[in-house]
């Protein structure tokens, strides 16, 4: 087939200043191949190194976009016109906030005086903070110092996402809350505290779990997103939504004495998936609820996140884009790692495969032996366990927590085998006996049950909710942690 390939002005000097080139081809792909073979200098402007069309090259057959047809496989016939149409895109990478129309009251002038006399902030900068809209996802350990400092600094609008209630065990680190707040919804208590601190702040409360259904709508309203979550599904969800919406994502995570901080902004650098393409197997990395966290640690990491947030709003300084900051409180050391954008990243790479939000629970769990895949028949409730004890049945209860947790509290008759030793001590179990596995809340013991089931142990069960459920439902005298 002889088709006419129309060349945009930008590329004509590569083809001897012709407006169009006649080529023999059966498909669009063949036509473009002939063109780039005849005019090799053209190639890297329209093709990637891996031989695909660059994503800013549109190709039309007559007046139809080939994306609505069969892409490069679209057949062409004699007399067709194939047109290369430049997709024109660009823009300023660094989001600079406008402070037009923002004024400060006399009260605000006094309040922010220490900022106003800094040349890097000044009146213009303070107005930018007031114009700024920041979404804090999670109002726990990280969200507490974050929202307090952002509110104190004069960020104009703070969105808070959480669905939890204040628990006594939160007070060791979640400085937003007081004893009188225990039992209250976190967002209600948080809003009260923030407005006490700075009534100029507008607080938007989203009392919900962030999901693939609501994330885009919530996130798109804000300039900067701060991730203060403690679980992998939400972390990947926040990352992907921020990449899709072009929002900077200020990331922090904590465990025991160690923290990580970075700024993921896919328009300028890597995203969370460039760093961690896949989540760890569920149950393998303990959460803070399971592994513990030094109460001060979220204070350090959260205030570093707040600092990065303020810098983005001000448009000042060097951000942590492309850098991962590691903090070790025990050694009192900061270490910095360089991060690189992964060109094959499924969400921010050259040929993304994730173009809308997916099911993150599934992404982080199903099919990989996680607690999320635990079949119901492999679970046993604390009430059922109590009943077994009451009837005098022989119960093999295996506690897979760490020795120092066992010291705090344990269920009488349980045998301690920390989860890390399970693979090494498989020979202590036999295939015919029944075993019930238990940890703090059910994550680690779920991993152990799935591990043993894969080895052929059929009579192993997971205690739903772990010793925490036992303490709340069966034995209120048991210390909780």
């Amino acid at each position, binding site marked *: 087939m002889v088709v006419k390939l129309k060349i*945009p*002005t*930008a*590329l*004509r*000097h*590569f083809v001897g200043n012709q407006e169009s080139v006649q080529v023999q081809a059966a498909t669009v792909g063949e036509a473009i191949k002939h063109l780039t073979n005849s005019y090799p200098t053209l190639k*890297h*402007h329209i093709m990637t190194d891996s031989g695909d069309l660059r994503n*800013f090259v*549109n190709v*039309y057959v007559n007046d139809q*976009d080939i994306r609505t047809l069969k892409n490069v496989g679209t057949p062409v016939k004699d007399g067709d016109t194939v*047109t290369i*149409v*430049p*997709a*024109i*895109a*660009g*823009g*300023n*990478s*660094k*989001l*600079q*906030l*406008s*402070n*037009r129309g923002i004024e400060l009251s006399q009260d605000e002038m006094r309040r922010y005086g220490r900022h106003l006399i800094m040349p890097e902030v000044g009146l213009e900068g303070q107005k930018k903070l007031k114009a700024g809209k920041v979404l804090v996802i999670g109002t726990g350990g990280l969200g507490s110092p974050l929202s307090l400092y952002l509110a104190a600094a004069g960020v104009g609008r703070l969105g808070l996402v959480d669905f939890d209630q204040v628990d006594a065990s939160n007070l060791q680190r979640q400085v937003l809350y007081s004893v009188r707040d225990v039992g209250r919804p976190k967002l209600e208590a948080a809003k009260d505290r923030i407005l006490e601190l700075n009534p100029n702040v507008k607080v938007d409360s989203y009392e919900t779990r962030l999901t693939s259904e609501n994330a885009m709508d919530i996130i*798109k309203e804000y300039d900067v997103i701060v991730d203060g979550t403690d679980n992998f599904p939400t972390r990947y969800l926040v990352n992907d939504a921020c990449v*899709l*919406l*072009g*929002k900077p994502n200020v990331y922090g995570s904590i465990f025991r004495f160690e923290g990580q901080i970075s700024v993921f902004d896919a*328009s*300028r650098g890597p995203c969370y998936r460039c760093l961690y393409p896949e989540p760890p197997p569920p149950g393998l990395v303990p959460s803070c609820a399971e592994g513990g966290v030094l109460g001060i640690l979220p204070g350090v990491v959260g205030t570093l996140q707040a600092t990065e947030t303020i810098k983005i709003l001000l*448009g000042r300084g060097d951000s942590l884009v492309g850098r991962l900051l590691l903090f070790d409180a025990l050694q009192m050391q900061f270490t910095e790692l360089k991060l690189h954008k992964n060109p094959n990243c499924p969400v921010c790479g050259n040929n993304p495969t994730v173009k809308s939000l997916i099911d993150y629970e599934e992404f982080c769990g199903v099919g990989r032996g996680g607690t999320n895949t635990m079949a119901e028949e492999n679970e046993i409730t604390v009430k059922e366990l109590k009943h077994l004890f009451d009837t005098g049945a022989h119960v093999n209860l295996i506690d897979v927590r760490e020795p120092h947790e066992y010291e705090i509290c344990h269920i009488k008759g349980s045998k301690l085998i920390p989860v890390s030793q399970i693979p090494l001590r498989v020979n202590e179990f036999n295939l015919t006996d029944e075993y019930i596995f238990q940890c703090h809340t059910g994550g680690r013991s779920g991993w152990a049950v799935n591990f043993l089931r894969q080895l052929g142990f059929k009579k192993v069960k997971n205690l739903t909710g772990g010793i925490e459920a036992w303490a709340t439902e069966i034995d209120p005298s048991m210390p909780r942690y």
Partner: protein
Amino acid sequence: MTVLIASDQIDAIKTHATSTYPEECCGFLLGVDSALRTIHRILSASNANAESRRNRYNIDPMDFIRADEEARKSNLNLVGIYHSHPDAPAKPSQFDLEHAWPWYTYIVLSIQNGVPKDVSAWVLSEDRSNFRQDDLRISGA
């Protein structure tokens, strides 16, 4: 390369940028090449970016095709693109570089607090590694 543009066309770009501030504006440059490149007309386009127009612009391919036809009718060529950088410098960004086409003149206008400031012109280098600044001359009042 030297790029020549009449001051009333620069004014038209500034008016467009002011009207869309704090979002980015974008449009086409129509002109002819001889010893230097002369831009005779600008054609404004709408920013088709759905999510983040404060720091991004896209132009609909159909707008591109129409602009190309319009250029041809006027015996001009589509020789480049202009866009604004609200509250940011008149320099192409990394994002601009990744999406740039060769040969086109890219005019970038900085607009600060709603007031148009610096304007500059750029062209992509042959190996796509950076932009070279063009000598932008504004003629006549």
